[in-house]
């Protein structure tokens, strides 16, 4: 499924959670996931947990990554 992280489209397995998408996002940027995980919000400014479940087309934003 396609998920958007900081408006960048990420292709990830169906059923992926927020942490999976973050890993894939940093991998796409040739970076590793920071040890201190960043704060993640949705498109409405609400914070989301790393084990949050996602639907196709969800938008995530990294606040301090």
């Amino acid at each position: 499924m396609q998920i958007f992280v900081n408006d960048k489209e990420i292709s990830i397995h169906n059923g992926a959670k927020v942490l999976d998408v973050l890993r894939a996002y940093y991998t796409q940027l040739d970076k590793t996931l920071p040890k201190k995980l960043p704060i993640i919000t949705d498109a409405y400014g609400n914070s989301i947990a790393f084990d949050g479940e996602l639907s196709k087309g969800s938008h995530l934003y990294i606040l301090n990554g």
Partner: protein
Amino acid sequence: MKFSTKLNVIYAIVLFSTSLLISCSTSQKVKVGELPKLKTLEILAVNDIHAALENFPRFAFMLDSLRAIYPNLLLVSAGDNQTGHPANDQYPEKGMPIIELMNVVKFDLSAVGNHEFDSRIAGFENLTHKAQFDFLCANMEIPKNVNIRIKPYKIVETHNGLKIAFVSFLDINENGIPDTHPDNVKGFSFNDPFKTAQEYLFLKDSCDVFVMLNHLGFEEDVKLAMQLPAKSVDVIIGGHSHTKVEKDQIHNGIMITQADRKLKYATLIKFTVSSEKKVDREMSLLAIGKKGNSRADIQEMVEKYNNNPALTKTIAIAEDDFSNYEEVGFLMVDAIRMVSGTDIAFINPGGVRVSSLAKGPVLTKNVYEMDPFGNEIVLFNLSGHEMRNLFLAAFELDDFLPIYPSGMTTRYLLNSDGSLKNVELFTSDGKPLDMDKTYSVVMNDYMASSYKYEHKDPGQGLFRTSAEATIDYLKNLKNIPSYRGMLRVEMVR
């Protein structure tokens, strides 16, 4: 008066004073003798409890404190009560501890979340009958041979004569089912929640307050609110995305709430209904916190569940010692391949957390020690070339350690400096693997999302943890053969 009761009262007074301050500051001016006839209603909502046993005693204490102020408080869950704690997930009657706890604190309703199906159809069927509250889901068709106790909606009448209609919708994925293993919902069919929601708008005319208790995820709840007539629903109480809604989220005149997950927070929603049926609502997110007062009887129940004999039960007998990470890793990777029924399986070296397993009884808790991360299994269809791409991409990221395979073997060709030159792939009996053929492959979700390599299939989560798969495999296997000296990975410099 018991000490805990005193604390309850003090907590209640603080909450009551706060609510008085808020209501005083927002009350409208009315003329003497023209006091409007207002009725009030309070709902406490949680979501995605995920068997958070440890937080339940504090949640119960807070709940009692709130009930001291609001004796007719309605208590609801927006689904996914299940899955996330071994004591609950491995309980002989899988998932029963969280249902018993929800019964004791008197939940009124729960949405059906995708993880409610983790106890399989017969298990969930049983839990719905043991629950002393109703499960709701309106976009699900139940097979005739399944006697599961789920209603599409429920109208609750309060002590002061208010009628509250609750209806619930569950998220379905691209495969047309909720996020669970297809076997867990065999025979069920699921309808589009957005279309189905339109069919239940008639409830608005049958009630004073109309609530959707959804398990769709926050962004999907916003989409739903935007598709519904403006202000047609008073509140959507949501779950699934583990979103922490701290401030009013009003979309198309519909309030949407969600309270993170695992009983870290709860949302208190207060309604005021005028005689003209005008509904005012306000929400506040209450922290349950990691420390604080807890209800002693609930604490005792949780301790009993944590001493669940199932966790210390022998599930298989190891016929030999396992004396290094490779041997333990090969056992784990065999387990996820056999349980998933695929051609091949992989586990990353970091996914194996113990380097030994003694000959003799193997306990459930031993598996959680080997595989403590709660990683879920993901299915891919990969060609031989794509698998080689994966091995090449993973080596450096995995600190120059090889991946543990099942259903095939590998030979890593290293340069003199230890870097990887190539990986050769073989069948289990040592013949070169057909690199153009496509194989069904499972791996954990860490591997599925961490390696940058060329492959066409984005993968499909199987919604099952590798630890649970290993436990099921070992239970069926009963006697674990020796893995001593097993060679599946050759490193050639």
